């Protein structure tokens, strides 16, 4: 079965959530078999995910039974969901019970608070290698999807479990959303090892979160940089969590100051801090920093995980023996490519085991990698990848007579807008649409967007404008 769930100790807890469900590996196998008995044809299934046992069991069943799930957030904006539905015409939905009224369909099955609905759409041909779909920019509901192939998730689960030395005694805490590649990898790598996974809906600012992981003896945690900002603010280092042994980070770059804070906390309290790096296109993780080097290699993402290979493109040598270039990766977890429309689901493997990340990285003289910048037009706000092009598209659809350009860094997005009249509406609109807190957006009104003769935006001029504004 998927992730060898049938080979693990069947009496052991596989999944426990903070909604009150507790499933052993036997429960997981039985539920997967119940799904199998429904004889669902191979087709695309939209899963509206939350961190709960019901949400997770559906994904496991679809993977095992060769349907093709697209994992979306249950909190995704309705309009954006409709858009995706129109484009990819899923034959089935796996959704929380409370969403049953919103989504029309015939109810076929339910388990652990989730229901399976048959939609009006017929199945259509999809590539036999295609195993799963994730969005490239979850919060904007981007129609650009990452096409995973069979073996991707399993390989990353196995190699990540190996590099973290997970055993069946581990109790993994899944606080990141399961429809987010890093959250999904926390789940897969623990289940692969026959360990237990805690699916937590409560957020890090909620005392219930800390109560739940303490009572249930969570032993490994993975956060994005913003998670650690919260933890620092709420005095995580003073908390009594004796069972929590591993603190992992992924999904964005920590500041060196924050990196040191976590590394020294881990060192002083007998825990380990593991910095990692991954992308959706590589079924999550590519790199891992040995925790014993965390204090020495501040800010590093480490080296490639087992069976993977990191390299740099267009290398430039530095004086200190380091090399800089675009980060590339080869390994069994590299996905097949993207889909921009339904027909693309027929496409074959386009990445062929090699992915160029668009991140600019430095490799030091000892062979350790550091992310130093980015080529592409996307930001990571609170750990979520947000496409600037996609955000501009959403704004232009809503306000057709205005011109927009978005820029920013991993703290804020700047929205340049040519229409002063709508200036105050933009932040509430785009924040609601993307489900990203309004403090992340800055709106700037400009007479016109500076463009060159080919219509390309002159970003340097916009940057100058920003600097003027600040002084």
């Amino acid at each position: 079965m998927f992730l060898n769930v049938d080979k693990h100790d069947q009496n052991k807890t596989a999944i426990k959530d903070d909604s009150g469900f507790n499933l052993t590996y036997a429960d997981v196998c039985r539920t997967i078999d119940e799904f199998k008995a429904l004889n669902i044809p191979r087709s695309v299934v939209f899963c509206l995910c939350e961190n709960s046992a019901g949400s997770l069991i559906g994904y496991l069943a679809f993977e095992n039974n060769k349907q093709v799930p697209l994992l979306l957030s249950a909190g995704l904006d309705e309009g954006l969901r409709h858009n995706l539905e129109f484009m990819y015409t899923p034959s089935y939905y796996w959704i929380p019970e409370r969403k049953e009224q919103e989504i029309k369909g015939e109810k076929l099955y339910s388990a652990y608070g989730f229901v399976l609905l048959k939609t009006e759409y017929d199945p259509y041909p999809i590539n036999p290698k295609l195993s799963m779909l994730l969005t490239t920019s979850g919060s904007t509901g981007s129609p650009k999807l990452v096409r995973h192939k069979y073996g991707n998730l399993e390989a990353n689960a196995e190699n990540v479990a190996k590099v973290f030395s997970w055993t069946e005694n581990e109790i993994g805490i899944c606080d990141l959303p399961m429809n987010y590649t890093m959250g999904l990898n926390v789940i897969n790598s623990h289940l692969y090892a026959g360990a237990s996974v805690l699916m937590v809906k409560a957020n890090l600012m909620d005392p219930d979160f800390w109560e739940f992981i303490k009572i249930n003896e969570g032993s490994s945690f993975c956060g994005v940089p913003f998670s650690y900002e919260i933890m620092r603010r709420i005095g995580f280092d003073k908390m009594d969590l004796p069972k929590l042994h591993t603190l992992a980070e992924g999904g964005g770059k920590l500041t060196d100051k924050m990196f040191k804070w976590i590394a020294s906390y881990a060192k002083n309290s007998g825990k380990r801090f593991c910095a990692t790096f991954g992308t959706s296109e590589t079924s999550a993780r590519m790199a891992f920093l040995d925790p014993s080097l965390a204090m020495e290699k501040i800010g590093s993402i480490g080296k490639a995980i087992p069976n993977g290979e990191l390299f740099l493109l267009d290398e430039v040598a530095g004086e200190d023996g380091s090399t800089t270039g675009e980060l590339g990766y080869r390994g069994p977890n590299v996905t097949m490519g993207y889909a921009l429309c339904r027909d693309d689901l027929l496409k074959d493997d386009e990445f062929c085991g090699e992915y160029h990340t668009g991140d600019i990285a430095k490799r030091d003289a000892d062979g350790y990698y550091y992310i130093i910048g980015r080529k592409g037009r996307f930001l990571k706000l609170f750990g979520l990848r947000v496409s600037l092009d996609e955000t501009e598209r959403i704004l232009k659809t809503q306000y057709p007579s205005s011109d927009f350009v978005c820029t920013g860094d991993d703290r804020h997005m700047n929205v340049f807008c040519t229409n002063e009249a709508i200036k105050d509406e933009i932040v509430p609109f785009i924040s609601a649409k993307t489900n990203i807190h309004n403090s992340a957006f800055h709106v700037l009104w400009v007479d016109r967007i500076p463009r060159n003769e080919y219509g390309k935006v002159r970003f340097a001029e916009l940057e100058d404008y920003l600097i003027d504004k600040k002084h």
Partner: protein
Amino acid sequence: MNALNEYNRIFRETFGVSEDALNEDFTFNGVAVWDSVAHMSLISSLEDAFDVMFDVDDILHYGSYFHGIEILKHYGVEF
């Protein structure tokens, strides 16, 4: 500075709601947009505006619009 006006402004801006929404139902568990990101933003806006530094316990238990007023009073803010 009128503390209540300032307090309400921060809530309106943090959560993108109108003043009518700020009542006894405006709680951490009852308001969908009150997530960890909004909570962090709320806490730092309040600290800036009222020149206070919250204890960890108060941050974690800052559970509602009304309860927050009581917490601020402990820090010497007069409403």
